[in-house]
């Protein structure tokens, strides 16, 4: 496997654009109390296509931009997205990458887990958070909107990254014994 120098640059550019679009446009779209999270969608696509290292790195970078642009507590979004990126990357590397449903499953699970994680993290940091508002009011429409946008964002990411290197098939995990 050869390393393409352009690839990290492309990933960084993709994440940067997604983060800027998220803080300026998508977070202001309110549909049934929720809004799409294109940063998470882009991160899922990158992690599935390029693996856990890229996923973790892109997650950290995306979180850093989002927190910087919003003047929020630095590191909070980075922590959540780093874990999400790594986990989805591992899923892609082992079984999920070449399965049609993988992006959808990853997006749904990542959206729910990131939301739960953020709730816990903000609670630990002493923010007054409402579990009802976060989990009952905002989460269902967010999952639905993210699932709606999964295919276009995944296709766009695949096209953008595919210019550098064709996607490798996942190494199947075989159970021994």
């Amino acid at each position, binding site marked *: 496997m050869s390393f393409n120098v352009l690839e990290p640059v492309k990933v960084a550019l993709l994440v940067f654009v997604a983060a800027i679009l998220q803080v300026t446009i998508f977070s202001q779209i309110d549909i049934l109390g929720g809004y799409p999270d294109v940063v998470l969608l882009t991160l899922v696509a990158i992690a599935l296509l390029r693996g856990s290292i890229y996923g973790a790195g892109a997650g950290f970078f995306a979180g850093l931009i989002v927190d910087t642009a*919003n003047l929020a507590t630095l*590191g909070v979004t980075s922590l959540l997205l780093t874990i999400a990126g790594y986990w989805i990357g591992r899923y892609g590397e082992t079984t999920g990458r070449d399965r049609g449903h993988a992006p959808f499953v990853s997006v749904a699970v990542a959206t729910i887990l990131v939301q739960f994680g953020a709730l816990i993290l903000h609670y630990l940091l002493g923010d007054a958070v409402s579990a009802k508002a976060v989990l009952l009011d905002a989460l269902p429409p967010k999952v639905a909107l993210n699932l709606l946008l999964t295919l276009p964002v995944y296709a766009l990411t695949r096209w953008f990254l595919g210019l550098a290197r064709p996607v490798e098939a996942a190494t199947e995990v075989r159970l021994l014994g």
Partner: protein
Amino acid sequence: MLLSLVLITVYFRESASGGLHGVQSTGATVLRPFEVGADRIAAPFRDTYGWFAGLIHAKSENARLRAQLDTLRAEAIQNANAAQQVDELRRQLKYVGLPRFPQDYNYVPTDVMSRSPSEFQQQVGIAAGSSSGIRVNDPVVTADGLVGKVSKVAGHSAQVTLLTDANLDVSAIDVHSQATGLVSHGEGPSTLTLDRVQKSQVLREGDTVVTQGWKVGPLSSLYPYGIPIGTVSGATNSEVDLYWNAQVAPFVHFDSLHSVLVLVPKRRNQP
């Protein structure tokens, strides 16, 4: 992951003038042109959507607003006379009062550049900062009423915590009954509650709620008296409650903020 934890710890523990805050402030300034660019690209699409969305409700809203206009026109004339009398009496008495809204404030009009992408903190980013004279805790309004207050300031941007944030309470007063209480976030998105109103006081549905603007010794409210907040949309009390349980429908549409005014006290610029 470790780096994220280190960032959280250092950021959380250091003061607002700390190194990491400074780096973040510089980063926010660097990101600002990109945000401005994205916002300008999105503006035509957002305006088109807003135009069509507005059309749907325009007819029913028009009839309601015409009826409201007739009532308010009469009230406005009475209020203008009363305000003139109050000003005249203040001058005669050489009355020393708190800063008044809007006379004693300068406005810094600015665009809303970003919205915090989470349900955990109701905050927006604005495109003006300390270079425009903005400081932490400056009140933020729109033509409709109170939006919130400035919570963080960078050179050319600032963070505004909205009234719908769980960490923001504003002392408020019912202009009709003079009942006082605290306005804070409500149960649903873009809803507010009016709490700590004694049951001995009177609250009626439809009453207008504005900022109270109190002063006790050296302490004073961050908000001047009279910034509109909303109307009482429901108020109940029971035998077991110590206070009224009231909901307030805000005048400001927190979901569609595109530009705001930051109130900078005129006294700040005086020696």
